[in-house]
């Protein structure tokens, strides 16, 4: 069965510092990967997704993620965070066919002024 692991439940970081949110997946077949963001009291919205091609994917708000097949990872990065990036971030994976998209447990990013 497919699974998505986000090891860090909370990540505090100072404003303008870089951040990396970790995501690992387990799948024996080709996988498609997503990062969603949930701002306080809002629904989730897509940040970026990897379907194929370049392993470095750029998303909205200056975020990017790198697909690493050998390490089964899809870590999310931003070189300089802003207060407005404070939110919860969810990694998700889909393996094709009738399988559902599997979400990780989320990482709360707290940007400190």
């Amino acid at each position: 069965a497919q699974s998505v692991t986000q090891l860090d439940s909370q990540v505090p970081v100072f404003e303008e510092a870089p951040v990396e949110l970790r995501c690992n997946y387990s799948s024996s077949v080709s996988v498609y990967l997503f990062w969603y963001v949930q701002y306080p009291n809002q629904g989730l919205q897509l940040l970026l997704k990897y379907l194929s091609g370049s392993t470095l994917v750029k998303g909205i708000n200056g975020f990017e993620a790198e697909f690493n097949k050998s390490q089964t990872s899809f870590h999310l990065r931003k070189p300089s965070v802003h207060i407005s990036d404070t939110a919860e971030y969810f990694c998700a994976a889909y393996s094709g066919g009738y399988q559902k998209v599997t979400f990780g447990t989320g990482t709360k990013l707290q940007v400190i002024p």
Partner: protein
Amino acid sequence: GAGVSQSPSNKVTEKGKDVELRCDPISGHTALYWYRQSLGQGLEFLIYFQGNSAPDKSGLPSDRFSAERTGGSVSTLTIQRTQQEDSAVYLCASSSLGQGVETQYFGPGTRLLVL
């Protein structure tokens, strides 16, 4: 155009009562998903609709949970005889064709509190 809407935004109920949660997807989206978000649990998949049929009900936690979709549009998630452990945020999402590689568009959720 309008996004996914859900109602009510908040619901407080007593243990043992039934509740109905409503989701209005983006117009034209054939796929609709229900998730449950509990503290520290991430997003738990409940059920997926393709049109009015539900090919995947594997996530419904018990037979107290049911969902339907009519006219390929609005969906209702019903929880019978609510229990305190049902307290969570219930999120609805839709996508245009129901292919897993598509972006899912989420509503703001319904916060359910069972006393």
